């Protein structure tokens, strides 16, 4: 057992770990210290100017820093994100007095239920009925094999990509199911079939209602204000030390005869503000809890007139992870996730406008009120290597306001291009090379194609352009890295064998059953780490519901496959 902790990384996983150490193990918050580049990880959300000086952004100054920026945002699912909701029930909302962060989201979501009625759109067809999954018998058989594969056989999918799993069934990639699945969860065809299996198991209930996203729950505001700030405020109140602008660059490990005892004795880090190198000793009472990868590491920003440049940095967390693997054999393989950008990269954009012209047009075209929908625009011509139609882009029109400081006349819309090297349909260049203005032109073009009229959105294009405050492209080389093709041994276990004081947390760790990219698994990994070092039995972990073993759910899923 330990009594102190050093957290490398101040994202959700390690903040969760700290909360459980304080509340369940009754640790003194003063005994917990975070070292991190920032205090949000992939759960950012703020005015642009709050992020321009951050580590990944300061070397690429923007000419337009107006508006808001949220590089991404997670959809929640109360039914399965039980650890996340448990965590949020333990801290106070920063925007709703008298409510916990969990009560805050429950309250908001109850008043703004998700019911997507324009999940898929295509030129010439308008809104497509996503309820018709489009699966044939071969598709159903392969999906059923995944669902019927028990956890103990998961290694059969070691190093099998989704493309390989369905290599004899390219029809799968022409189904409404796939279009919805890939854009809801950001899976790419090079992604891991092993992870797809985990998703099919943990999200089997939502599979039965995927076209309307009925099971999607949302936070009141962006993830930083609704999730991270409650945690940050709580931990600071408890006396935790959150030391930012630190990039941990190397380890000291205890030397042992057989070199298989994993004991951290020191950390080297760079103060990214001053450039000074610092060293921290790790004593026998201290646990080191390390988030070994971030999907927003090496991300870069553009603006309305500037594309986001590419930053070829391997990633701060991943670089440190790699250093650890140079000492021990059982800590996974970071290259599987951070040395294959073609498998993981995508670009998003955050669009801020000063009026509701565009929002009103999107509402008219999609027949969907703002908030809680995800709309994906299908191409009308083949765009994939297999010569198939696919999704060009997707947007999320948040419930407004999405930021607490947003004025009533302002709107914020988010969108993303899952395959950033594909060329635009209206702007003849790859999405990754587009400015924010060009991304907006792509969006208007996609909306114009599906516009039912009578006045096409093109007639309002000038007014829409005039309304723009900013449109910020974000290039994220590792946005889907956590889905990269892998073997089970490629991710370190939360508590690796022979580790005396080191735990791994976040989205690049191996733990039973959990799917990733959901915040749920990040929280659970932090919980496991906390309980391990505090000597709390694992039986105290939040119970995990297993809908993949619930016969009524499985029967509904079977029925859905034939829709």
């Amino acid at each position, binding site marked *: 057992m330990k009594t102190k902790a050093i957290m490398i990384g101040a994202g959700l996983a390690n903040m969760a770990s700290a909360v459980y150490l304080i509340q369940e193990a009754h640790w003194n918050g003063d005994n917990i210290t975070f070292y991190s580049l920032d205090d949000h990880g992939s759960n950012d959300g703020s005015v642009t100017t709050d992020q321009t000086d951050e580590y990944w952004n300061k070397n690429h100054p923007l000419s337009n820093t107006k508006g808001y920026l949220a590089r991404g945002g997670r959809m929640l699912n109360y039914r399965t994100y039980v650890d996340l909701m448990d965590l949020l029930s333990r801290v106070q909302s920063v925007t709703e007095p008298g409510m916990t962060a969990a009560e805050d989201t429950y309250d908001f979501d109850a008043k703004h239920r998700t019911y997507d009625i324009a999940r898929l759109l295509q030129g010439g067809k308008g809104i497509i009925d996503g309820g018709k999954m489009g699966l044939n018998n071969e598709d159903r058989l392969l999906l059923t094999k995944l669902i019927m594969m*028990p956890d103990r056989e998961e290694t059969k999918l070691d190093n099998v990509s989704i493309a390989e799993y369905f290599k004899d069934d390219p029809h799968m990639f022409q189904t409404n199911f796939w279009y919805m699945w890939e854009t809801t969860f950001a899976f790419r065809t090079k992604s891991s079939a092993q992870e797809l299996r985990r998703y099919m198991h943990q999200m089997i209930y939502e599979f039965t209602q995927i076209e309307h996203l009925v099971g999607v729950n949302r936070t009141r505001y962006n993830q930083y204000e609704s999730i991270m700030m409650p945690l940050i405020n709580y931990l600071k109140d408890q006396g935790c030390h959150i030391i930012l602008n630190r990039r941990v660059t190397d380890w000291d490990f205890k030397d042992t005869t057989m070199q298989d005892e994993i004991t951290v004795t020191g950390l080297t880090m760079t103060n990214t503000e001053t450039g000074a190198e610092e060293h921290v000793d790790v004593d026998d009472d201290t646990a080191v809890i390390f988030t070994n990868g971030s999907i927003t590491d090496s991300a870069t920003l553009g603006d309305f007139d500037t594309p986001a440049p590419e930053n070829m940095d391997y990633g701060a967390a991943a670089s440190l992870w790699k250093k650890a693997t140079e000492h021990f054999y059982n800590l996974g393989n970071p290259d599987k996730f951070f040395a294959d950008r073609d498998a993981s990269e995508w670009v998003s954009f955050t669009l801020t406008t000063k009026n509701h012209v565009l929002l009103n047009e999107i509402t008219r075209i999609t027949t969907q009120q703002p908030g809680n929908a995800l709309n994906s625009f299908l191409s009308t011509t083949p765009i994939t290597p297999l010569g198939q139609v696919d999704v060009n882009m997707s947007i999320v029109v948040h419930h407004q306001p999405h930021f607490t400081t947003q004025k009533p006349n302002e709107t914020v819309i988010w969108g993303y291009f899952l395959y950033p090297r594909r060329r635009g349909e209206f702007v003849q260049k790859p999405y990754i090379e587009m400015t924010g203005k060009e991304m907006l032109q792509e969006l208007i073009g996609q909306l114009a194609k599906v516009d039912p009229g009578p006045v096409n959105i093109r007639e309002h294009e000038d007014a829409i352009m005039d309304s723009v405050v900013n449109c910020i492209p974000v290039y994220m080389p590792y946005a889907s890295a956590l889905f990269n093709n892998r073997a089970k041994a490629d991710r370190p276990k939360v508590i690796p064998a022979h580790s*005396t004081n080191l735990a791994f947390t976040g989205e690049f760790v191996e733990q039973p059953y959990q799917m990733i990219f959901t915040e749920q698994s990040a929280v659970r990994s932090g919980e496991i780490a906390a*309980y391990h070092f505090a000597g*709390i039995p*694992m*039986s105290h972990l939040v119970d995990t519901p297993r809908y993949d*073993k619930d016969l009524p759910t499985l029967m509904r899923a079977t029925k859905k496959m034939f829709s």
Partner: protein
Amino acid sequence: MSKKQFVLGVFLGLVVTSAAYVANRLDLFHDDAKDYEEFEGR
């Protein structure tokens, strides 16, 4: 044994076998807690 009893027996046998197969594939009787034993504090 009558023909009816024989057919019923075969049918029941198939049902039980199928149920056992599904239960096995779904790991219905697996105790998930065992999966976390390796993370217990040492």
